[in-house]
């Protein structure tokens, strides 16, 4: 049937517009494509699941991705751009900035428009009214706490009770311990921050990948003849068109950009089609015929370790890495122990779930024989990603730019779409845009590793831990990535907050045909802490000791050895955190006692963590430069997909140099301008890159003392350099002993203890989290909002990991099947902070982003046990699992 076109009159941000539309045109396309209103984001494949595209239509919050333009005759449409600009922001946009509600910023414009619609009809909403109004708006970063704060603050602004200037920190206010607005916050609030999908690239070709529907198969042939003749198609590339190694190699070169003769996991790319439009590219990709010969699929480490299992990679066994940790005499200690507990704890493969789908653009800049291949994407390690791409594509003259990035949580350590886009740009010598769907993005990205851990833990009659044994099997998936690094991180932090004199642990990393694992918030320790912290509660119960007192009693002390035999040199303020949370714990236990009968039972659980910061041999660099206007710029590749690294660098600069906040800047997102500072992972940014920045800034400060002024002209007159390179290096450099796992470990730690309060429905098995409380000591706080935001987002992510989320390749396709956290699943949170300076901290500080979820899952599982008497030893603790466990009691 022919499309019936229709002329529509409407208003967009106050301007009358006439639109000729077909019956299927969606409002999101009219706004994003037709009017370049890129605040209207896309995440959920136009299923109306995420709210990132929320705009106000005739006064109501409306999802642009499911609203047809043909239905909008006479409509009055407002987008985030229509509310205000960074120079003249709306009160709601100000409220989001001043509440610390903006982390990655991808969901922010939609949230702000939902706020506008709500406050227009209800200027003083309650928390429950806010939760109801925002039921269709998702956020992965904040745990929703600061978004609710922002809506309430916006209400106060709108009602005229206070003004933004009443609460906005002044540039001259103290630099440490003050929530100065993030430098990037206002452009994110106003929707003008460009994410990769927002970048205008005239004449760009669109790319679609041909991906394997099989998890393990030989590629016997690829027929592109039909696809190449389809409308709009410019061409198809396969592995033979890639001039470099065709391997995206961190440590082992086993992951191809485009597969050659074999696919190893579901969704592996075998070809890429480029066409004039995305629809044409997608249609042609479907027409590429690939002949596969199916191979046995190894879907678990047990299958992969079987004697007759096929080898996934021809050049290495499925058992790809082992590392023991042997300290003292565990067997002897177990034999003498007063109490021993043991259990098996399994964690799931999980998706990190940044809201922004994968995206990259690539183009050649300049002419001549050696133009620059520019890749714009979402890497958290731009120099490292560029080096990987240079090798893979066989092209050296490159620049990687990090666009604003919609969350990452470890996932963006890996190069994913950039390789294919770059290869196509080099092959066709045309600009390329590759923006896969959410479903494809979920399928092709790295995942959190599944751990299968058997733990045995012992204590003496006085309640002191004496021995621990673990057998850990890690499903590394189809590609090596940094699997050994993730596993070693777990081993480094094996004994966590405690002193355990005898340890006997064995760990194995195994290739399977599952999605490959890589960095994911916490990166290894969340999995092993689940086993350890549940075993701590089991042991406390056996010894009839209070779980909080038991943990405090076993705290490591400065000068004692950690799991790797390393003598802890730094402060260890864990007992003080136990004291800090104790009043909250006692209150929770008292409240629990009134809910021990009936169907709904209440429970309280704890989980502790000592999360290592500054791993042996880590190093970072940063540059501080005095500018013409006597301001200072820090140049460091400190990616900021939401944590607030721009705040950290600028507040440190202002603190070290005594400058107001409006005289300091940070440049972090371009390989041509920044020092290579390593990835934004492992909570290393404040400690390592911040430390390097402080070194550079201190050099600049010392130079200013010699010159007598921090003035550009004075420096020039004195012949002093205005540019200083700073470094930070971890003093210990040795690796763990491959046979004993003994050796130096992280030189500092962030400490925390978390408490979960839950209600368990003993009939349905449903678990409701009432409240999470974290007591944390990360050293002196640079920006309180940023610290709270990391903790709140981490607790929310940890709750999803504990109760709902699991990635099943091919079945987890969107935010509903992923069970993305919502306002409905959100819960109250409290963050208690202590600020003990660390010996080699950055002005005493460490970092909190990853620690924030390390002990959340065990705290929740321990609370479920406290409520109804069952241990859930296989995450996630779904209602079905809880109900089944209850039925066995």
């Amino acid at each position, binding site marked *: 049937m022919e499309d019936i076109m229709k002329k529509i009159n409407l208003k967009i941000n106050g301007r009358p517009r006439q639109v000729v539309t077909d019956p299927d045109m969606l409002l999101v396309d009219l706004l994003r494509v037709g009017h370049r209103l890129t605040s209207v984001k896309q995440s959920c494949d136009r299923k109306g699941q995420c709210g990132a595209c929320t705009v106000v239509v005739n006064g109501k919050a409306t999802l642009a991705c499911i609203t047809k333009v043909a239905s909008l005759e006479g409509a009055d449409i407002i987008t985030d751009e229509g509310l205000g600009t960074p120079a003249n922001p709306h009160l709601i946009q100000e409220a989001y900035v001043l509440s610390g509600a903006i982390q990655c910023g991808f969901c922010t414009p939609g949230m702000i428009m939902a706020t506008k619609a709500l406050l227009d009809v209800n200027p003083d909403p309650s928390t429950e009214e806010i939760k109801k109004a925002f039921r269709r708006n998702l956020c992965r970063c904040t745990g929703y706490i600061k978004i609710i704060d922002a809506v309430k603050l916006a209400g106060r602004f709108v009602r005229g009770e206070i003004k933004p200037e009443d609460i906005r920190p002044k540039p001259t206010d103290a630099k440490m311990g003050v929530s100065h607005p993030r430098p990037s916050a206002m452009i994110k609030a106003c929707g003008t921050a460009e994410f990769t999908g927002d970048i205008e690239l005239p004449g760009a070709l669109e790319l679609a990948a041909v991906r394997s529907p099989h998890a393990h198969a030989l590629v016997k042939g690829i027929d592109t003849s039909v696809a190449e003749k389809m409308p709009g198609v410019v061409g198809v590339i396969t592995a033979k068109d890639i001039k470099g190694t065709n391997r995206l*190699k*961190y*440590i*082992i070169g086993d992951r191809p950009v485009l597969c050659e003769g074999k696919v190893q996991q579901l969704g592996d790319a075998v070809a890429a089609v480029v066409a004039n439009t995305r629809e044409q590219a997608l249609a042609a990709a479907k027409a590429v015929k690939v002949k596969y010969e199916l191979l046995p699929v190894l879907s678990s480490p047990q299958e992969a370790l079987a004697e007759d299992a096929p080898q996934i990679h021809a050049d290495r066994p499925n058992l790809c*890495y*082992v590392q023991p940790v042997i300290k003292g005499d565990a067997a002897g200690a177990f034999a003498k122990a007063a109490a021993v507990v043991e259990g098996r704890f399994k964690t799931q493969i999980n998706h990190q779930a940044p809201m922004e789908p994968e995206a990259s653009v690539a183009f050649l800049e300049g002419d001549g024989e*050696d133009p*620059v291949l520019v890749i714009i994407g979402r890497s958290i390690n731009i*120099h*490292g990603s*560029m*080096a*990987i791409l*240079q090798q893979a594509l066989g092209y*050296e*003259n*490159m620049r990687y730019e990090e666009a604003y990035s919609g969350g990452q949580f470890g996932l963006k*350590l890996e190069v994913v779409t950039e390789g294919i886009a770059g290869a196509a740009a080099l092959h066709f010598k045309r600009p390329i845009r590759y923006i896969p769907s959410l479903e494809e993005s979920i399928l092709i990205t790295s995942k959190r590793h599944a751990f299968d851990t058997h733990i045995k833990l012992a204590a003496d009659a006085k309640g002191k831990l004496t021995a621990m044994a673990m057998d850990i099997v890690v499903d590394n998936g189809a590609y090596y990535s*940094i699997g*050994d*690094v993730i596993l*070693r991180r777990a081993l480094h932090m094996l004994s966590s907050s405690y002193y355990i004199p005898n340890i006997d642990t064995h760990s194995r990393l195994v290739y399977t045909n599952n999605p490959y694992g890589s*960095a994911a918030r916490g990166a290894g320790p969340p999995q092993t802490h689940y086993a350890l912290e549940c075993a701590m509660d089991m042991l406390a119960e056996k010894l009839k000791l209070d779980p909080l007192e038991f943990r405090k009693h076993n705290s490591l002390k400065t000068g004692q050895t950690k799991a790797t035999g390393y003598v802890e040199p730094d402060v260890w303020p864990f007992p003080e955190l136990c004291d800090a949370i104790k009043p909250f714990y006692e209150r929770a236990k008292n409240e629990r006692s009134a809910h021990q009968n009936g169907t709904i039972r209440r429970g309280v659980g704890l989980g502790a963590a000592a999360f290592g910061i500054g*791993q042996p*041999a*880590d*190093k*970072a*660099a*940063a*540059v501080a430069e005095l500018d013409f206007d006597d301001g200072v710029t820090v*140049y*460091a590749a400190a990616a900021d997909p939401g944590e607030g690294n721009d705040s950290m660098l600028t507040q440190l600069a202002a603190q070290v140099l005594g400058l107001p906040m409006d005289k300091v800047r940070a440049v972090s997102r371009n*390989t041509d301008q*920044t*020092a*290579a*500072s*390593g*990835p934004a*992972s*492992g909570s*290393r940014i404040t400690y*390592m890159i911040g430390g390097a920045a402080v070194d550079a800034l201190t050099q600049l400060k010392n130079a200013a003392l010699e010159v007598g002024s921090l003035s550009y002209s004075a420096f020039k007159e004195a012949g002093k350099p205005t*540019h200083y*390179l700073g*470094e930070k*290096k971890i003093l210990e*450099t*040795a*690796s*763990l002993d*491959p046979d004993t796992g003994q050796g130096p470990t992280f030189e500092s730690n962030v400490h925390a203890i978390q408490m979960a309060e839950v209600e368990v429905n003993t009939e349905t098995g449903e678990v409701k989290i009432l409240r999470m409380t974290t007591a944390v000591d990360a050293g002196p706080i640079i920006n309180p909002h940023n610290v709270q935001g990391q903790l709140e987002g981490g607790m929310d992510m940890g709750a999803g990991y504990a109760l709902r989320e699991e990635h099943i390749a091919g079945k987890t396709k969107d935010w509903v099947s992923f069970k993305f956290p919502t306002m409905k699943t959100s819960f109250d949170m409290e963050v208690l902070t202590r600020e003990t300076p660390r010996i080699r901290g950055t002005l005493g500080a460490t970092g909190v982003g990853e620690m924030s979820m390390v002990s959340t899952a065990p705290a929740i599982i321990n609370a479920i046990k406290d409520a109804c008497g069952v241990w859930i030893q296989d995450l996630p603790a779904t209602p079905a699992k809880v109900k089944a466990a209850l039925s066995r009691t």
Partner: protein
Amino acid sequence: MQEFGREARILAGRKIYFDWEGFFWDSGDWSEEVAVLLAWEGGLSELTATHWKVMRFFRDYYAYHGRAPLNRHLREGTELSLSELESLFPGGIRLGARRLSGLPNPKSCF
């Protein structure tokens, strides 16, 4: 079983760590004496003035910017063509000259 971490070697009387691709873990461990030894291992029996010019450029660039130079910077800074640079060091520019100059691997640090 391969250990994918750092490998310690004693060179010129010093313990120096290298990564899994043979890059210096810490550029501060580099010295001319060590460079001569590594060059010899790699098949370069003699480091000429041109070799030293290239290595000095690498090190000076890194010391100022905190990152490695790209080929376009090398061409300008050394006044050598890419083919001259590639043939000057066994392993070429990246795996030869850059490694011999003591610059770290940008893929390290997790």
